[in-house]
């Protein structure tokens, strides 16, 4: 089973997200970077499918050169190949991103054959555009479903056959059964991603990352600025220290009528 996972490098902020002085981007000067959580689960999901059915996982990202770190991380937990579509900065709009990824995927498939399954995160953790995967699937002419938290492949997972996918809704889930080759937008909760082993880490240093230059026309959405929402600042009332505070806590619960 040949699976492609598209991931995005995003900053990992703590208590607050700061914006650069000109408002053009997140101020990541003191931040670490990570893979969007949905996509971490997508990588794990792909690795599990390949462990079950045999095959291999390729990871693809569009981003700055440093995104190689996220591709190597994916390799450390089981991906076999990494492809980086290198672009300046982080501000590509969704149409442009999708067009460049589509071109990259067509190129990879022309060389190495068609992917049975392509996974995206449901939305990126930062921009949250909810559309890149859908646009790529459409451009490739493949069925695509978003919001997926469960994946199974029929037969040996490759060539003709189906993908069964589960989507959580309030109080239950929907089941989709779509023919391969298919595309899914997955969400955290699909699985619990493994941590890299020492062996995985060493192996990930050695994999070759193919680099492509990103070219695509700009889409119709362009950023003017980023800013933080206004927040109501409230004074915290300290009800007490340790177990002694219990009576005051229950007074509050009583007042709110939740006792």
């Amino acid at each position, binding site marked *: 089973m040949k699976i492609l996972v598209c991931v995005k490098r995003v900053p990992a*902020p*703590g*208590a*607050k*997200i700061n*914006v650069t002085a000109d408002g053009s981007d*997140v101020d990541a000067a003191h931040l670490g970077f990570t893979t969007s959580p*949905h996509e971490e689960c997508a990588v794990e999901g792909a690795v599990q499918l390949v462990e079950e059915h045999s095959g291999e996982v390729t990871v693809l990202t569009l981003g700055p050169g440093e995104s190689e770190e996220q591709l190597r991380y994916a390799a450390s937990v089981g991906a076999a190949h990494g492809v980086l579509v290198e672009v300046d900065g982080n501000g590509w709009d*969704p*149409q442009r991103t999708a067009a460049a990824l589509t071109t990259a995927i067509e190129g990879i498939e022309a060389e190495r054959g068609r992917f049975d399954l392509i996974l995206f995160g449901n*939305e990126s*953790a*930062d*921009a*949250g555009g*909810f*559309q890149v995967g*859908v*646009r790529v699937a459409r*451009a490739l002419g493949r*069925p*695509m*479903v*978003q*919001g997926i938290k469960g994946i199974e492949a029929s037969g040996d997972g490759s060539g003709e056959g189906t993908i069964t996918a589960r989507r959580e*809704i309030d*109080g*239950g889930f*929907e*089941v989709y*059964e*779509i023919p391969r080759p298919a595309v899914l937008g997955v*969400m*955290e*909760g699909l699985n*619990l991603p493994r941590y890299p082993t020492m062996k995985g880490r060493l192996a990930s240093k050695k994999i070759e990352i193919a680099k492509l230059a990103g070219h695509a026309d700009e*889409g*119709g*959405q362009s950023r003017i600025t*980023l800013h*933080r*929402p206004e927040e109501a600042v*409230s004074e*915290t*009332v*300290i*009800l*007490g220290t*340790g*177990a*002694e*505070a*219990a*009576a005051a*806590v*229950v007074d*509050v*619960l*009583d007042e709110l009528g*939740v006792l």
Partner: protein
Amino acid sequence: MLLVILEHEDGVLVEAAREALTFGRTLAEKMGEDLEAALIGSGEDSLVEAAGQYGAETVHVAAPVELTDYSPDAYGSIVAQMVESLEPDAVLACGSSRGNEVMAQAAARLDAPFVANSLDATPGDDWLITRVQWGGSLLEDVTLEADTPLLTCGLHSVASEPGDEQNPDVEEFDAELDASDLITMVKDRVVQEAGVTLPTAPVVCGGGRGVGSADGFGQLEELATLLGGRVGCSRAVTNLGWRPHSDQVGQTGTRIAPEIYIASGISGAIQHWVGAMASKHILAINTDREANMVVKADWAVIGDLHEVVPAIIEEVKRRKA
């Protein structure tokens, strides 16, 4: 004309659709245009009537017989067909899981831009839109250059409110679907959970890394049960395997809106906070007076949750006795 795509379930206009119409009324007014609505998959009277209560003057109904359940491809295709033949000035849906998916599918077919999760939109030659990033931790101002602007409003970004009641005209929309549009139709539905769910629980007892173990959640379970609520947790906890992901509160988990959120041993990272901030009240229990959760809470207890939570349980039992 502003066309609002309405989400519905079992003959009921879901809350997201009511929000879209509420947002749409303000937007249509700014545009100086009429507010019309679209129902896909069903044109039941109850749905048309509800759309009228929220101000829709005309309701377009596309219900091809072969479309027996939700399908992102079919729904996206129908919205794209509506853009082409009804020629709306803009199309709006609510940014629910489905709303964003359907609009993305339509945009992909039309090769047009789509702006997800808007909070405010100013029509013009180029539209000016404020939208959500980072699940609500940041906002982005964008310009949108499009023949027909396609957008969603952020889920729960407006409170739904009925408008000047209309008795809408119903227009049948003749949608053409081919077999490929039906490939992604829902095959089966499984009902899993009855009773209070995390998004609707009146009390949520949340635990973070400070709880220390999977077993440590026993006390939070007990407190939640006593208060008729549910247990929630942070991503640190799901990553450690102490709780299932369905308990996770936050950007990549569930958004909660209880009467009170009791957050124990949770630092209050921004991605957790965006899932908790719709809570009416927040009580933090933490050893660290400076933790973000404590700073942002209405009330806090400073101390070890392993001492504080059992004491609260005892006190609740005593008063209930």
